[in-house]
């Protein structure tokens, strides 16, 4: 298995992501945003951070970086599993590889909290994830409220693109109580084809002393994609 972790100017979770993959026995290659290929990797993670200082809009400038041309080409050929974490998710939406956009949180604040997320729809490319399965993961973002038109949101639920929703400790999706940022449909993550994105940070939940190992399990299941 050849996995890559991309560093954009302003990425700050790339190192954590590399360490998390190493814990799972994967030795990732590191790619720089100016690279024009993924070094033969068939798995790529776009990590969290503040690429380009969040200038213009979160993820907007990184989405046009040369490495993203390579990502898009390999996705079009079905030769790449992609995971965008937080800023990586914003980059995927800005690039059009996932639908919708992440706007400012409902309360206008940077939210740095532990949240429950629940698998709403099992992604066809990742058979390890089961509907109803939940994870406790940290979020850390100011622009994390998933937004699309109402019509498009219905379609995303129907076609199974809504992969993760925020939930309470009992695993219930309660829009006001368990939705930390005002995401439409309490959406915390999407998966379409082999492209997955989520706002929470699995790479920050890889050992008990960090508060949870759920992120390790999450990444293990991601690496089992087909």
């Amino acid at each position, binding site marked *: 298995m050849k996995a890559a972790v991309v560093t954009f100017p302003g990425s700050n979770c790339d190192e954590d992501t590399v360490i998390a993959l190493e814990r799972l026995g994967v030795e990732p290659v590191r790619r720089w945003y100016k690279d024009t290929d993924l070094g033969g990797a068939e798995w790529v993670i776009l990590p969290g951070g503040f690429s380009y200082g969040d200038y213009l809009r979160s993820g*907007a400038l990184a989405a046009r970086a040369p490495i993203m041309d390579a990502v898009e080409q390999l996705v079009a050929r079905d030769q790449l599993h992609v995971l965008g974490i937080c800023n990586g998710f914003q980059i995927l939406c800005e690039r059009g590889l996932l639908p919708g956009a992440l706007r400012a949180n409902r309360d206008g604040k940077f939210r740095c909290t532990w949240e429950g997320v629940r698998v709403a729809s099992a992604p066809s490319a990742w058979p390890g994830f089961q509907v109803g399965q939940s994870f406790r993961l940290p979020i850390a973002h100011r622009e994390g409220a998933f937004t699309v038109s109402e019509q498009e949101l219905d379609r995303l639920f129907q076609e199974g693109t809504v992969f993760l929703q925020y939930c309470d400790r009992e695993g219930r999706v309660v829009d006001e109580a368990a939705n930390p940022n005002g995401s439409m449909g309490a959406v915390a993550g999407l998966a379409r084809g082999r492209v997955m994105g989520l706002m929470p940070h699995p790479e920050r939940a890889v050992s008990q002393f960090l508060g949870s190992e759920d992120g390790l399990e999450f990444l293990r299941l991601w690496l089992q994609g087909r």
Partner: protein
Amino acid sequence: MSRWQVVVAIRLKAEILDPAGQAVGHVLQQMGFDTIAQVRLGRLVDLEVEAEDREQAVAVAAEAARRLLANPVLEVFAVTEAREVGGHR
């Protein structure tokens, strides 16, 4: 070719929540601006464009807005101004 100063105005769509605009609105209320009912924050982008004529300068700015400056899910844009600032070369 001549040089044109083109202004692109980008606004959040009416239905998109604007917490930053709300915060500014609250402070204006506290300052006594009780006739200001709503505040929405947007973004102005000043471009200097080399173009044959005004129409071409506006077209380039609109294309830049479509492809990068505005996000069509959240925002709308308008080219609000285009004036010649440099002579012909």
